[in-house]
């Protein structure tokens, strides 16, 4: 079931984003150290392209399967909509891409781990997706390019009942509309 590979464990610093993050800040992960071993994606940090990478000279099909845009999952702390620091470059890369390609559309699918109630987790998944939306919009992505859809805990990425699974399920997936 552990489909996702390549995670490097590294120092994680959570970064607060936007207005709702102030609320999130009060809810900082009670799971403590366990969550801090969560997905980090540290290897990609700093490797996202500059704005010109997707400028007017992009031709034909974009390469969404290689490079920084291949990573489309953004991770979160427990009961929080703070984007983990290690996931921030992923959001920035997609923000630059979407801002440069105003015709592209994406769905931000919010997810939660299985702890707690199903409907509260739907709300939490939506809050996470909105947190990503807010960051994308700050980078110039148009509101009409994005749609939010929360699946809560209904579509886990991995099916285990422990923190190492849960941290992979607290996520937002960026799904481009023609894929």
């Amino acid at each position, binding site marked *: 079931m552990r489909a996702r590979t390549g995670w490097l464990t590294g120092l994680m610093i959570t970064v607060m984003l936007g207005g709702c993050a102030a609320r999130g800040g009060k809810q900082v992960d009670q799971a403590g150290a366990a969550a801090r071993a969560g997905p980090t994606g540290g290897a990609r940090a700093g490797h996202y392209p500059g704005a010109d990478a997707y400028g007017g000279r992009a031709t034909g099909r974009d390469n969404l399967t290689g490079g920084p845009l291949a990573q489309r999952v953004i991770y979160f702390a*427990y009961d929080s909509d703070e984007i983990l620091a290690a996931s921030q470059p992923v959001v920035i890369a997609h923000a630059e891409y979407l801002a440069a390609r105003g015709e592209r559309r994406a769905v931000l699918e919010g997810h939660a781990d299985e702890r707690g109630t199903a*409907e509260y987790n739907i709300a939490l998944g939506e809050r996470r997706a909105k947190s990503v939306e807010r960051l994308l919009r700050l980078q110039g992505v148009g509101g009409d390019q994005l749609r939010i859809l929360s699946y809560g805990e209904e579509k886990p990425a991995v099916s285990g009942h422990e923190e190492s699974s849960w941290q992979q399920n607290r996520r937002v997936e960026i799904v481009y509309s023609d894929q």
Partner: protein
Amino acid sequence: MPIAIVPFGQLEPAGDNLAHIVAADLESSGRFTPLPEAQMPERPAPPDAVNFPVWQSAGQEHVVTGRVSPGVDGAPYAAEFVLYDAIRGNQLLAEQIPFKTSEARHTAHRIADRIYQQLTGERGFFNTRIAYVTAAGVGKSRTYRLSVADVDGQNAREIMASPEPIMSPAWSPDGKRMAYVSFEERAAAIFVQNLATGERRKVSDAPGINGAPAWSPDGSTLALTLSKDGSPDIYTLDLASGSLRRLTRDDSIETEANWSPDGRSLVITSDRGGKPQLYLLPASGGEAQRLTYEGEYNARGVFAPDGRSLALVHGGTGGFRIAVLDLGTREVKPLSQGPLDESPAFAPNGRAILYLRKDAPGEPLAWVSTDGKTRRKLPVRGGEVRGAAWSP
């Protein structure tokens, strides 16, 4: 209380031992201790006389005898049973229930209900049903199913299946319809489905969340969670007119509404205080009153049928358990062990709470008596269970 259910005489449809089902039902209520068959001093069946002194010597207060005979008026079978007071030596109940082979288990549950009601003065719940959602498979082959089964987990029947999530089934107060959330259109929508005909109607597909449907006691209105105006808030939807009314206006999460039996208020989950807690909201709108303070996570409150208590999911990072909140004393009493329990639903007589055990494959559903003394685990096939509801 001690009771002996004597094996029923002759003609039983294959595979269904009515006396065993009746005994298992009564035992699971926590209020009866059926005598093991091996310890029975005799095995009378109607119209045999019962030798009360030998049952008294065996410590029995009540004895049930029964017999399955050829039916009348077109039904292939008739189950006849007699309930005796073994101390006084008199007959308390004698009935005959015609049934078809496929109804054998239901017939046993009805007999258990009649005995339960006669001896406790309360309605039994053994002939009620439960609804639950299962999810099986991964990726594109994943399938979500909404099913209805007997309260002992048997006789499961599929109501709806989809490659996309199905959530939060809710029975209408008359038991004829089910509201649920479906993502079949790659967005959340709420449907109401007629259980007899399968006919269904989409009642809400606003942008964003369409969740947590809850029937008003009169069946005319659904409370639901919508996020179309920003953060998730509680709305009511009049099913006949389609008119929508907003009950909460907060930046925080408001969800999981459940109506009080008198229809005057709703319990909701809100994280306006920073963590999910239960609040009481007037059905006419207005200020919500906080109900829970103990613990960092209290959610999915549901009213007991008498309106005096709530079942809820109580916990935090240490685990999630089903608990009961006494609305008079405000005391929270955990009933389940956790660590990943959710989706509490009261039996229609308020004597038990059905819940979901996420880390218990094979027996993911259980119910616990509200005094905490008895538990019954229900076998469910078809994958992990993701939501459950108890019929009226």
